[in-house]
Structure formats: C-alpha cells, structure tokens
C-alpha cells in the first residue's frame, strides 16, 4: 500500500512536471484554428501540416539549413572541447611542472567567471579580426579549452585511474606523450563521453553567443531561427512555431533516451549544473 502511494505521488508529480512538454508536442499536431480555439490537450484531428510548413522554410531559407548550422557549431564544439580539455586535464592530473599548482587554481577560478564580463571585448576582438557572422567565435574558444569545467571533470577522472598502469608504462620507457595516448586516454573514455554529451547539449541550447555573433539568416542556428518565428508570428503560424520547437528539442530528447543513465550519473558525480 505504501508503495502504491509512493508510486502515485511520483507519477502525479511527473505528470505536472512534464505537462508543458506533452502540451508542446500535442499543439504541434493541431490545425491552426484548433490551437487558438480549443484548450483540450489532444488534437481532434492530428495533422502534419505544421511540420510540412516548417520544412518549407522561413524567409526563403530551408529549415535544414538552420539544423545544419546548429549541427556544425555543436559538432565543432564537441571536437574542440574533447581535444583541448583532455590535453589540459592530462597535464594537470598526471604531469609534474613548476607552475602546476597556481595554474590549476587559476583554471578553477575561471569556471565561476560569468561569461558576460568578457562578452564585449571578445566581440571587439572577433570584430577586428573580421570574424563576426562566422562560426569561428563560437567554435574557436572550445579548441582553447575555455570551458574549464570540463578540464576539472576530466582531471577528477584521471586522478582516479590506477597508478600502476601509468607507472608500468613509464618503466617501459614511455614518455609523457605515449603514456597519454596508450594508457591514460583509452582509460578516460567515460569522462570524454560525458564531456562530449554535455558540450553537445549545451551548445545546442546556447543562445546568447549565437545571438551576438551570427547576423545573417543564412548563418542562423535553430535557436535564432526560432526567435525569428516568434517575432513574425501571427496566430495562424503558431502551429509551425510549435512544430519547429519540437524539432529543436528532438535531438536532446534522443540524447536523453540513449544516454539517460550516463547523463544523470555525470551530474551526480561531478556536481555540474544543468543550465
């Protein structure tokens, strides 16, 4: 009986919590007049017209373009973060050098640094380099390990690896580089996967930097294109706006389905936030 009550409470809470998502999906399949007139969740008639309209594109730009742009930025960010953060983490976790302590402290301090403090000068620099309205300002920082949080995550993981393997490699005459590529890197895969997943999701959701750096609609990523939708939306185009919202969230939903356990465990062992 107590179990039943417990399950009932949990399921009840989840229904309330996930209602907005269910609502969004339901609306995306409703015809325009029903979205405005009816409050019921389930569509009287399921239509795919909203999605068809989304695929026709916005302002002459096909929707796959926005998808592609978002994908390029996200994939570049993943590659950049995984490479640069792993390299830095290996140095901090496994190598001895004089400034390691102070640099490590500095790295930790940058985790808490609000992005807004460097926003304007970064913009100025990229503007002077004539890189505004390209993907460079979005991807380049990732190749320079500015998401220090992930360095910390990988450092923690590498410190937990058994010493014996690395020592054995040393004794066999492996230098820092070979011990990295042959011992530490293969063993660190779980941390790298976590880094990749979170980088992808956060970049996919990111709005502020894409808003600042991308100007022409051809370069727009999904969040920017969605915003375009809100601005021009009359009541008749609510449906396509909802459909596009669903499409935007879909990749994250798929990631969640595939890696649910890994994602949640990643959060609980590292204490990283979700926003």
């Amino acid at each position, binding site marked *: 009986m107590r179990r039943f009550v417990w399950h009932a409470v949990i399921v009840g*809470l989840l229904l309330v919590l996930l209602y907005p998502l269910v609502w*969004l999906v339901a609306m995306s399949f409703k015809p325009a007049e029903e979205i405005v007139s009816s409050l019921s969740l389930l569509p009287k008639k399921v239509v795919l017209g909203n999605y068809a309209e989304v695929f026709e594109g916005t302002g002459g730009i096909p929707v796959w373009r926005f998808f592609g742009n978002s994908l390029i930025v996200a994939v570049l960010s993943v590659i950049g973060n995984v490479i640069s953060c792993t390299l830095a983490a290996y140095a901090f976790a496994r190598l001895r050098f004089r400034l390691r302590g102070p640099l490590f402290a500095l790295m930790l301090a940058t985790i808490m640094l609000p992005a807004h403090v*460097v*926003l*304007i000068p970064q913009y100025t620099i990229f503007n002077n380099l004539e890189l505004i309205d390209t993907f460079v300002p979005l991807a380049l920082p990732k190749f320079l390990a500015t998401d220090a949080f992930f360095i910390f995550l990988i450092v923690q993981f590498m410190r*937990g690896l058994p010493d014996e393997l690395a020592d054995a490699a040393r004794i066999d005459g492996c230098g820092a580089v070979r011990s990295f590529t042959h011992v530490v890197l293969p063993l660190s895969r779980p941390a790298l996967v976590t880094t990749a997943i979170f980088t992808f999701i956060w970049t996919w959701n990111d709005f502020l930097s894409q808003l600042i750096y991308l100007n022409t609609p051809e370069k727009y990523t999904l969040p920017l294109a969605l915003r375009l939708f809100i601005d021009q939306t009359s009541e008749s185009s609510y449906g396509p706006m909802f459909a596009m*919202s669903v499409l935007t969230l879909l990749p994250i939903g798929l990631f969640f389905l595939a890696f649910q356990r890994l994602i949640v465990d990643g959060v609980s062992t590292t204490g990283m936030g979700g926003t």
Partner: protein
Amino acid sequence: MASTTTTRPRPGPDRPKAGVSAHRRGLRPDRTREGLAGYIFLSPWLLGLMGITAIPMLMSLYLSFTDYDILSTWSEIEWVGLANYRRMFGDDPSYWHAVQVTATFALIAVPLKLAAALGVALLLNRERRGVGLFRGLFYLPSLLGGSVALAIVWLNIFNRDGAFNGFLGLFGIEGEPWANDPDWALETLMVLAIWQFGAPMVIFLAGLKQVPTELYEAASVDGAGPVRKFLSITLPMLSPVIFFNLVLETINGFQGFTSAFVLSGGTGGPVDSTLMYTLNLYIKGFTDYEMGYASAMAWVFLVFIGVITVVLFSTGRFWVHYSDGDDNS
C-alpha cells in the same frame, strides 16, 4: 566543485612512490622533459586563458572607463574616467531597476528551486522499481530548460488564453495574462527556473546516498521519528551539498538570460518587469552600442558575484557541517 564526488586518496604525481625513486634518479633529464611536456599539453588552454579570458578581461576593465562603442576605432576611444560608474550608481534608474529585478528573481526562485529539489530527492531516495527512470525524468527539464523552445512554451502556456488559465478556469478562477502582465511576468520566469530543479535534485540524491545508514538505525533505536531524523541527521549530513547547490544556483540565478530575453522579445518587458541584469547589459552593449558603459556594468557584476560568493562562504561556516576525516565508504 567536487563536494559530491567521493574523496579519493589522490594518486597524483606528487605523492612519493616507493620503489620509483631509484628509477627516478636515472631519469633526471626526463623531469625537465616532463615539465616541458606539461606546458605543451597545456598550451591550448594557456592560449585560451590569455586570448579569450585574461586579455579581454583587462580590455573590458579599460573600456569601462571609456565611451567606447563598436564603431569607434581605437584612436577615437575617449577616456571618461569614472563617468560610467557614476552614471550607473547615480542617474540610471533602469540600472537599479534591473538590479532589483535580478535580486528578487534570485531571492525567490533559488530557495524554492532548492526546496523542490530536496523534497523530490528525499522522495526518490529509496530502493524501488523504476527509481532510476523517475530520476531521469525529473532531470529532463534541466536538460531542455535553457532553450528558446522552452521559453516559447512558457510564453504560450502562461498567456491570457493559455493552458494554465484553462486549468484555473476549471475552478472558476479567472487568471491573468501572466507572461504579458507586468505584475506577473517575473513570476512566470521564476516558475520556469524552478521547473528545472532536476540538476540540484540529482546532486542531492548523490549526497543522500553518502549519509551512513547506521545513523538512522541508531536514531530509531533511540526512538526518533522521521521529522527528528530529518532535522538531526539528514539536514546536517547534507549541509555541504546544500551549500554547494546554493552557491551554484545563486550564481546561475543572477545570470539568467535566455528565458528573460525570449519571454520579453529582447526588451525586458512588459514595462521592464523582466529586465534581468544580464539582459540589461546586453541591451546597453549590443542594442544601444554603449559598450563602455556595458563594460562597467559587467565589472560591477563580477565584483557583485564575487561578494555574494564570499558572503555565502562566510555564512557557510555557521551552518555547514563537515564530517571529520575522509569518509571513503
């Protein structure tokens, strides 16, 4: 940040290792090589630290004393001394309004979010079928919440004709146009923030797993009820995690941007009711092109976040309980 990881004895390279020392003597040249390797491995990060973080920070400090806008070349930038700061503290009502909006948001949304997170974590902290799946589903909003798509959903659910008012209508209550009502727009944003309690919840759950069950058993023997156990065992044992979540969520709370931007169409409206600090900064810098002024705002923001963190840490000494030694359970 590591408060939730189990503390492992650090197998870092500084720990002297028996049996290696003889070997190490023979490798003396390698130590400098290893040092060199360290800096080579760090070089991308060092480059980023300089180019993307340190130099821009110094630049923004300099710009905060100028009237810089994006159009002026470096030679045209005019030094204005403390004018930007004076304007901020003296005669910019919108600045203080934004500070007030942000503080209200953080003071209300953060505690409620943490309370929701702790409550659900306590509910989920037991061995039952499906608990892993439930944990994941409660976390899902945290994954999606920062996105534009979710802000659109909020805008439409909390509307005059939205689903929330439809729900209230069932009870004969006539709702407000929440997201478009100056009196309620900020609250609508708060609900969106609280809705994403999954991330701190997962961290709480990890913390709850670390509380030794013997403590509860001993308390039961002493006849303590569930409330007493919660107050005397769970809360003190969990206080480091609560503290960690509080610091993290407070800092995040002050920086909320996307949802405020989308909900208000980038204006902070209606009637500046959702003019969060970072949104105000964006408007000043990238809409009005007063980048010198916006840089000053950014630096005050940094100092402010620093002060908040220090204050939280200094109060933490009075209520955060660290169990002695390492509990490598």
